[in-house]
């Protein structure tokens, strides 16, 4: 017994290296598990496109679509179209965020603002805003102003609603504590109300961000011009199905990156929140 190495009985590694390697292996497995379903979907796509059931026009192969994306990237078309779509989505989202939080705060602080905005929100939130598209085109044309207006029109509602609900839920004891320690009304708002409501506000922003991307693409498709949505409609007119599918993949990737980035921002901003210790889902 005494001749055995100290840790042999417990099965623990004797130095850090195997443990590190094991952790790396576990992390790789986790990363793989996370994208497994996507890989299955892509493999099915590739197999289906080559099985002879569909013509390449009906369903171009995944590899052909990746090849098209690569071609677009080298000619610079991808940068222009994806860049414009991303710019519109993010500009619209930024306006939604600033204006939405401001209106939500005003509604929570002032009876008059609440009286004025509340019915508008109740009617406007569930309404399909895309119905206003012809009017927006009539008033603002088909360029960036019109597209970004459409995005703000759609994305601002969840931000306002989340801000109002978040501020309503702030415990009065927190506000009293700050007042007790000599905080002014403005300091209470900045130091207490906003941070206390931030989990809900960020949730509202997490709803508004993908919504902004969706509306951007829809608006681009209906109004034309550069941008991924416009490029896809153009490709469809020329029966260029590979480019249409390339657009779908590009939008999917952009949406995925945006959502992941937003989840990262949330984790960064809410390190103090109990949810930070819980496993992440987004």
């Amino acid at each position: 017994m005494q001749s055995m190495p100290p840790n042999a009985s417990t099965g623990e590694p004797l130095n850090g290296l195997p443990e590190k390697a094991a952790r790396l292996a576990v992390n790789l497995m986790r990363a793989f598990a996370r994208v497994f379903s996507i890989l299955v979907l892509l493999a099915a796509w590739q197999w289906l496109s080559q099985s002879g059931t569909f013509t390449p026009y009906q369903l171009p192969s995944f590899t052909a679509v990746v090849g098209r994306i690569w071609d677009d990237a080298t000619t610079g078309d991808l940068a222009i179209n994806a860049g414009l779509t991303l710019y519109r989505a993010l500009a619209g989202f930024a306006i939604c965020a600033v204006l939405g939080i401001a209106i939500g705060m005003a509604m929570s602080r002032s009876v008059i603002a609440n009286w004025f905005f509340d019915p508008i929100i109740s009617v406007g939130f569930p309404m399909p805003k895309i119905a206003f598209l012809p009017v927006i085109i009539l008033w603002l044309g088909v360029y960036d102003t019109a597209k970004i207006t459409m995005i703000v029109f759609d994305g601002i509602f969840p931000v306002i609603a989340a801000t109002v609900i978040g501020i309503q839920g702030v415990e009065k004891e927190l506000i009293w504590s700050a007042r007790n320690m000599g905080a002014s009304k403005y300091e209470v708002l900045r130091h207490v109300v906003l941070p206390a409501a931030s989990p809900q506000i960020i949730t509202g922003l997490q709803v508004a961000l993908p919504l902004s991307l969706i509306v951007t693409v829809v608006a681009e498709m209906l109004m034309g011009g550069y941008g991924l949505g416009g490029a896809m409609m153009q490709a469809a007119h020329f029966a260029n199905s590979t480019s249409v599918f390339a657009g779908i993949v590009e939008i999917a990737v952009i949406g995925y990156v945006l959502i992941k980035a937003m989840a990262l921002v949330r984790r960064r901003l809410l390190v103090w929140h109990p949810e930070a210790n819980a496993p992440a889902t987004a």
Partner: protein
Amino acid sequence: MTDPIQPPAQIVVDRVTHMYRPPRGKPVLALDDISLTVQNREFVALLGPSGCGKSTLLYLIGGFLPIEKGAIISDGQKVTGPGPDRGIVFQHFALFPWKTVKHNVLYGMERQSLPKAEREKRAMDFIELVGLHGFEDSYPSQLSGGMRQRCAIARTLAFDPKILLMDEPFGALDAQTRGLMQRELLAIWQRSPMTVLFVTHDVQEAVYLADRVAVMSARPGRIKTIVDTKFDKNDPDIFKNKFFVDKVDEIWNLIREEAIKAQGKRT
């Protein structure tokens, strides 16, 4: 030799009546003609059944609720709003969850004219005092209930209030932690006595901590009696001490009928 000049009382509640106005429904008389005086450096417990308005009275003294009828004088000045001369500790801690222990404790001092280095030192001193050394950089969500209340007490003591208002501060803690915290609060108060008004519904807690216990009646809240409970609290066997047991019994008899009344009114 006693001081020939009595220092003025620190809290004077003068015939305060308060209506509770629920968002829907009829207003309810919560406090009915309350008068109470708390002397300088005195520890007074406000004891009563739940719903008797004892917390409401504390919030009125804290300046968080408008005083509609009567007056409250704190340290010679009429109470018109909250202020750092009256520090409050809440039952559910009311810590800023997005701030670490240290930054919670610093918040009150940041609004005072203290140099930064001194604020930091003072914060660390009070964190040390309540036994949270080593947890300065933890967030409240990472602490146990007892530790959170320690942090809240440190935060309130740190901005140096003349009066300490405590709203059932140990009510949310488990029995063991509560006992420990009571002993520590008493030790802190004995070392540097300050004026304390302590709301509780726990008779033993009130007798153990306070110099005087103001017993309140069920709604509408009135001060029923004030019982003197000043005696040596450092007896290790205090809970078997005859005086202690008798006082608890006396107050319990006073409050029993009120508690029954409060129960009956609810159904």
